[in-house]
């Protein structure tokens, strides 16, 4: 029993799931059953993948001990590059990868600058936040490019599928990518290196792990996921606005932190980041449905973030203090 409790306490994402269930019950009753009806679920599940994919990338990078504030800007830059190319008559098969390559390049620059010059990634990516946003506006000329009808294979990315059209294709992409990244982190040697690099860099280095390459890889994965998420949003909306994704970087960090990822690195799970992202979406949606003034959303998000960190720290300390007896 004690053993099970300890395992539970060591997994902050489980506490998040419990909180999520409680919130769902509260919102369900406050909204007179609208919250969990098919239409609202369809709306929420359609929006979720975009932010959750960003959160997955940010969570991975934070576990590796680094930070990315530029994801919101990459979220806009990637589809803008694609959009401008499509408007110019390029085929999707070139425009779509071009956007993702640009996202990867941003990650490469973020990672290389951070590691080579040994500066905090907070600073590098804060700079990149402005640079990438500026680039987005410059290449768009300030107006969203007009993407020709049918230039984007939306049926592959954002079409409604499943019983009653409950989910979008984007949700399937999200689940597959999240599973893949989750498995990489928990099951592979690369995941072991990511955790070691973020957990205690000197130890990782002394054991011969290529920490520079591991960090740069995480920066690139994070950036590509943000770019892909932005592309999904643009396909859903139909046009790339230069302003999308503003403030998303902080929501993604909040999602990671709510899900139990430590700012100091080494601690956290992909599932935790996803749970955090779902919580944020649920609160956003639930407050509206409960007819609470929508301006309370940021208040709730802020309070939850701080509360979650305090609870997670407390749970960890509690779990650490519990000595489970051996049976040798």
């Amino acid at each position, binding site marked *: 029993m004690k053993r099970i409790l300890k395992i539970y306490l060591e997994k902050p994402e489980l506490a998040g799931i419990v909180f999520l269930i409680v919130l769902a019950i509260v919102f369900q009753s406050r909204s007179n059953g609208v919250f969990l009806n098919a239409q609202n679920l369809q709306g929420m599940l359609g929006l979720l993948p975009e932010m959750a994919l960003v959160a997955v990338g940010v969570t991975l990078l934070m576990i590796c001990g680094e930070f990315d504030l530029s994801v919101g800007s990459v979220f806009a830059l990637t589809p803008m590059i694609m959009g401008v190319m499509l408007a110019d008559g390029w085929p999707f098969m070139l425009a779509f990868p071009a956007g993702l390559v640009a996202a990867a390049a941003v990650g490469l620059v973020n990672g290389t600058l951070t590691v080579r010059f040994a500066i905090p990634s907070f600073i590098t990516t804060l700079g990149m936040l402005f640079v990438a946003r500026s680039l987005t506006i410059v290449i768009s000329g300030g107006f969203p490019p007009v993407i020709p009808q049918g230039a984007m294979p939306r049926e592959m990315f954002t079409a409604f599928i499943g019983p009653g059209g409950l989910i979008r294709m984007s949700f399937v992409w999200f689940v597959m990518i999240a599973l893949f990244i989750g498995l990489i982190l928990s099951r592979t040697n690369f995941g072991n290196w990511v955790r070691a690099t973020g957990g205690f860099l000197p130890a990782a280095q*002394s054991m*011969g792990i290529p920490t520079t390459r591991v960090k740069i890889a995480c920066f690139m994965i994070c950036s590509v996921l943000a770019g892909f998420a932005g592309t999904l949003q643009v396909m859903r909306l139909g046009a790339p606005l230069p302003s999308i994704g503003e403030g998303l970087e902080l929501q993604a960090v909040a999602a990671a932190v709510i899900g139990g990822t430590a700012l100091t690195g080494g601690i956290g799970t992909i599932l935790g980041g996803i749970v955090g992202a779902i919580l944020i979406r649920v609160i956003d949606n639930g407050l509206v449905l409960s007819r609470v003034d929508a301006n309370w959303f940021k208040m709730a998000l802020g309070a939850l973030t701080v509360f979650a960190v305090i609870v997670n720290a407390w749970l960890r300390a509690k779990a650490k203090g519990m000595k489970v007896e051996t049976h040798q």
Partner: protein
Amino acid sequence: MTDPIHSRPIIQVRNLHKWYSGVHALKGVTLDIEQSEALGLVGDNGAGKSTLINILSGTQSPDEGEITFEGRPVRFRGPRDAMDAGIETIYQYNSMVPTMSIARNMFIGREPLKHSVFGIGTMDFARMRADSVQAIADVDLHLRSPDALVGELSGGQRQGVAIARAMHFKSKVMILDEPTNHLAVKETQKVIGFVQSLKDLGITAVFISHNIHHVFECCDRIVAMARGEIVLDRRVADTSMEEILTVL
């Protein structure tokens, strides 16, 4: 042990020099480390011990001089090269990641894989856990489970796991860099016990410490460094703490 490999020193260091932006940290160090001896390396801060150790463990490269390992000249480009050759270093702030489990720590950078593509693949957890349990039992350490976080272990236990790891990977030389720092008295004794037991296993130990008492307790031979040079090299039986203190 009469085969030729064992009759000559396992590590030979010849005329090693290292400069750090103008500071001459190693001034032509020459040293032979014999097979399965326990060598104590003492010296004040800045004496050059760490530089020498960093070069032997592959984290730094010398500006001048040669190293031979088992009779062959070697030049390590990174810690992994040294580890692959059979030289494993256990650091003061230990080479363990506190937020990871014992089993994961045991195999950091050397994970057994079930399938892999270009060196990246899925880890064989069953083997990692079983081997960790075995390796830890081999150093007479009793731990709760290979899934326990290293952060939950005491300092002495962590050093024990690090030593178990080095033994599991069949290290021939174990460099222990201030392994007894920040440890309680009882824990210190445990670590000294580990070092003493290496001899019976035929493993060469290089034990670095500020604490001369610890060195006298577990080493066969003492090398003292000061100002980038070796100033004393004696068998423990032929020297005294007073003599060492006067040369430092």
